[in-house]
């Protein structure tokens, strides 16, 4: 079993790097999803506000 350390190190590094990369992608994805939800909610709000104003303006005429 000589040189087992090298073999172990090589495989540990491979899996560590891949794992870290997946975590990096997932965290970024989660962050973007939050951002997307916030944006969508705000867009909906502003649009509803616009529609409401339009109706009041039409009612006033």
């Amino acid at each position, binding site marked *: *079993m*000589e*040189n*087992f350390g*090298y*073999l172990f*190190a*090589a*495989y540990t*590094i*491979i899996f560590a*790097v*891949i794992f870290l*990369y*997946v975590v990096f*992608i*997932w965290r*970024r*994805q989660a962050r*973007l*999803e939050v*951002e*997307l939800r916030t*944006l*969508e909610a*705000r*867009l909906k709000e*502003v*649009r509803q*506000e*616009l529609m409401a*104003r339009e109706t009041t303006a039409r009612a006033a005429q």
Partner: protein
Amino acid sequence: MNKSLNLALGALTGGLMVVAIYMVFEYVPTEADQGIVQRIFYFHVPCAWVAFAAFGLVAICGIFYLWLESPIWDDLGYAAAESGMVFCTLVLVTGSIWAKPIWGTWWTWDSRLTTTLILWLLYGGYLLLRAMADDTPQVARFAAVVGIVAVADVPVVVVSVRLWRTIHPAVLVTREGGHGLEDPRMVATLLVALAAFTALFVWLLILRFATLRMRTRIAKLAGELNLAHAAAGDL
């Protein structure tokens, strides 16, 4: 990308990976000359294959982006370059760990190592360009051009480095590939590992591609929100 496809690919990758690990550590016979360290080979070579495929994909995406100007190609190219870089780094690191007990040194300027290092530098430059600049169609075109030029450079790099090395005798002439794989179990292990890494690459590529698509969608929504605000503001 829908969730079930993602899950299925993740499961396939995980399954293949488990089989590959079993074969590397249990099934395959130990190589006579190099001993146990030679088992690095079964994951080292798939990493190299995936890295080269990824870099080729970067150039293909670059050509399609310049031709069709669809941001999908840009995002795919970016995702391919990034995951390619991850695997290219792994090739260099595992190669180095393998070289130490076998060649007695962490690094030699052998033609394959040198070529891989230059590839790493080339795509490091590509990713730095993407990291430093904003996400505009102009920068996407720049990245496409750099990706294409980098791949066009690769054949000359390979030839020049090989010629450069024949002047100085290589440390070790024979290495992996063709020579040491006399046992069919070794071939089988390598093939399974290749399949596992290809699945892993596709999975990572899709994951990364999805986040990049989402980034594009967010930019578009932010633009719409600005427009809506402007419309609301003028009352």
